[in-house]
């Protein structure tokens, strides 16, 4: 007799495992299938985010940042350390331990929430049955009333510089290096490229980042991108814009990267080359041809705004569908899908999804950039406040950056908040809440912010929009 569940989720990344837990909270019987296998050969829930993305990268960013500060900042505080040394093996052990705790945590959540977590491959067949190939054992057919596809994404492999797992590597490999490469090349100055470049630069690599676009951080507000550009340059990140990579060739002594920029064709030699030019939806062997699932021209599973596929009762969420490839976007879609399956009303506000880069300074924003507002034709006003004038930032010795707010001139609604500076990724939550509730600039102005705190910069930026900043001269 085959097993049957109310809901079968394929993929236990941040979209899938959240969908599974939420569905179980609704009293539905749920199974969640995942085939992720770590480098140690063990299966783990959590997908890219927990195993090879968000979490391990933050662990390394923290370690490398502390190392960097110990070398360059402790003296200012009067802390005498002598020579500071970095034990890469210990750093990686800590990273692996954090990942293990969190992925184990999902298994615990499944157990507590009565979700049946299954390791193996899941494939959607016609008629809402799922073919489950366990890690060991025989293929099973699982009956499902509803299916949620949450198969995630994988790094794009460039034909001109294919991954070899040793010298030309993807973002996962780049998190698990056991030595600091002397010369590190990064293709792509996006979120992943900049974060990984930052990690290894702080640990001592000479990092060169090649970005094909002419604009730095094209998706960010220009003022924020400008500040970030200056700060990265100060840190010694060598970012080349408009640099189109022609070929990456692995040799005995490293990688030769040929590229062309405004100065013509050139090449550099690096010991390791990280290719981080983006990710593509991962749908390999996810569904049978007759299952009724459609892919768009970029390989994303076609869904409507509530994540329903063309097949009734089958949803798809997270990186395998349209929209930004962000864990928090996938999780929210997972919640929405589970709620809809349970017969509740659910929707998702795609206009207010925060973006964060965990570089130093951190970069975060929500809502529209000034350029987007300008293009929309809406009359607007802006205000900004530099962390240079923040007492808390001064005390933290992290004064670079600023908060910028863009609001409607007509009705004062906040349209976008952009932060570059310390803890921007934390500060952005206030912006998200404000945007989610259609707050006006005045609402932020009239909200009390604790002193001294970094969040005061958000308050002052809101005041600056109406030229009422109190701790900085209004322009």
């Amino acid at each position: 007799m085959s097993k049957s569940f109310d809901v079968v989720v394929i993929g236990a990344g941040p979209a899938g495992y959240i969908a599974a837990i939420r569905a179980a909270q609704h009293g539905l019987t749920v199974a969640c299938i995942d085939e992720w296998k770590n480098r140690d050969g063990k299966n783990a829930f959590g997908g890219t985010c927990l195993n090879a993305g968000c979490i391990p990268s933050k662990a390394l960013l923290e370690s490398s940042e502390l190392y960097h500060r110990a070398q360059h900042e402790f003296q200012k505080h009067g802390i005498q350390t002598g020579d500071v040394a970095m034990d890469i093996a210990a750093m990686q052990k800590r990273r692996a331990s954090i990942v293990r705790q969190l992925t184990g945590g999902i298994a615990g959540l499944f157990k507590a929430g009565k979700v049946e977590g299954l390791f193996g491959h899941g494939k959607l067949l016609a008629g809402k049955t799922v073919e489950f190939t366990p890690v060991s054992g025989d293929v099973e057919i699982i009956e499902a009333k509803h299916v949620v596809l949450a198969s995630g994404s994988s790094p794009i492999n460039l034909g001109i510089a294919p991954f070899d797992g040793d010298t030309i590597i993807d973002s996962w490999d780049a998190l698990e290096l056991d030595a600091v490469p002397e010369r590190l090349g990064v293709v792509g100055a996006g979120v992943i490229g900049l974060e990984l470049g930052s990690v290894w630069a702080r640990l001592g690599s000479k990092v060169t980042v090649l970005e094909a676009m002419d604009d730095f951080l094209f998706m960010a507000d220009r003022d924020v991108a400008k500040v970030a550009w200056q700060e990265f340059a100060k840190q010694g990140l060598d970012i080349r814009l408009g640099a189109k990579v022609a070929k990456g060739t692995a040799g005995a002594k490293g990688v030769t990267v040929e590229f062309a920029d405004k100065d013509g064709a050139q090449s550099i030699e690096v010991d390791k080359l990280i290719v981080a030019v983006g990710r593509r939806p991962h749908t390999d062997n996810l569904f049978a041809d007759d299952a009724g699932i459609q892919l768009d021209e970029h390989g994303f599973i076609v869904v409507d705004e509530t994540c329903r596929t063309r097949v009734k009762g089958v949803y798809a969420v997270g990186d395998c569908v349209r929209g930004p490839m962000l864990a928090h976007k996938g999780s929210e879609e997972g919640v929405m899908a589970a709620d809809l399956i349970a017969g509740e009303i659910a929707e998702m506000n795609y206009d207010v999804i925060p973006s964060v880069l965990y570089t130093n300074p951190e970069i975060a924003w929500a809502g529209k950039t000034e350029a987007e507002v300008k293009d929309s034709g809406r009359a607007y006003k802006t205000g900004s406040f530099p962390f240079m004038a923040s007492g808390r930032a001064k005390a933290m010795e992290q004064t670079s950056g600023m908060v910028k707010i863009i609001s409607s001139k007509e009705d004062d609604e906040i349209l976008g908040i952009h932060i570059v500076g310390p803890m921007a990724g934390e500060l952005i939550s206030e912006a998200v809440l404000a945007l989610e509730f259609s707050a006006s600039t005045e609402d932020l102005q009239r909200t009390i912010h604790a002193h001294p705190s970094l969040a005061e910069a958000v308050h002052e930026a809101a005041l600056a929009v109406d030229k009422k900043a109190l701790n900085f001269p209004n322009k």
Partner: protein
Amino acid sequence: MTIEIKVPALPESVTDATLVGWHKKTGEPVTRDENLVDLETDKVVLEVPAPASGTIVRIVAEDGATVEAGDLLAILEEGEAAVAVAAAPEKEKEPPVEPVAVQNKGPIKTSPAVRRLLDEHDLDATMVTGTGKDGRLTKADVMAFLKADDSSNVTPGDPAPVVVDDSAVQGLARNEQRVAMTRLRARIAQRLVEAQQTAAMLTTFNEVDLTEVMALRSRYRDEFEKKHGVRLGFMSFFTMAAVEALKRFPVVNASVEGTDIVYHNYYDIGIAVSSDRGLMVPVIRDVDQMSFADFEAALNALAKKAQDGTISMEDLTGGTFTITNGGIFGSMMSTPILNQPQSAILGMHTIQQRPMVVDGEIMPRPMMYLALTYDHRIIDGKEAVQFLVAIKDQLEDPSRLLLQV
């Protein structure tokens, strides 16, 4: 002199109220009629105005306290209010308004900018449609509302003038004045629209020959007044006739609650009276147990209170049926609007000598048109018509009032 500030009379069926918040602190000067504190019941939010100017010397009941009618709230030392109050750039506060039509389930929570705008324009959150998350009000919503409602180009942060006189600039004769609704007016407007939108309102008419009532009234007028100390008016005849008709057609005395019909085995009659501050409907309770004299006395007392502005919330709450008399202003015929949750209202009109055919002859008779607006959701046309006929029959032959036939 010290004055005790107490919880005012609470509406029927309300035993206690929650003290939502003090607007004043101990030692703070207050001016007469300034709102001191908000009390919230499950039906209304009550304001407690300062009975005199002076200084709050002691606050007895703190925020969040549960209080009952008559409980001591604070002690006021009467005397000159400090000048600082007058200097505040705030707009002059409206006199506290009896929440005649307030039916809120507590105040709507709004964001700080929205609160500021609503306060500044003396608006109520319920008057504006929210477009924010889950229908919440945004500042943009209130600004759009004001813009649609007001030509005085409001920009954020600018207190809008209440009166805008464009002609002063133009120097032309075409003059127009824009005045924000008082809170009472806004409430009335809101309630009337609510009635229009929720009930299936229909009006039926009849006419009544008042020859007999007038004769009876002129015959006993002096004697009645001498004995009872009140004038014998028409109102008592109509009310008594209406109560008798209500007894025969209980559904007219009923109200709708969701999908239930609630029949009331008591006869609390609201009499619409106009006052300087707008329409008010004081309620006279248990009219079925009253004599004509009792009723006239009660009505006079309430009318006086309405004019003086001393009417209490209890006087204005409840009621199972309403009578409105447009006749005192000369109305020949009108269709009243329900005073929800009641399901019927009787409209009286002006008395006019009109030629009527009586026993085959044309005779001048004092005639009045009667209108009954009713909620067709629960009252059928037959009942409504018969109800009105029952009133007509009793008024045309007042001895029926005595015999209840």
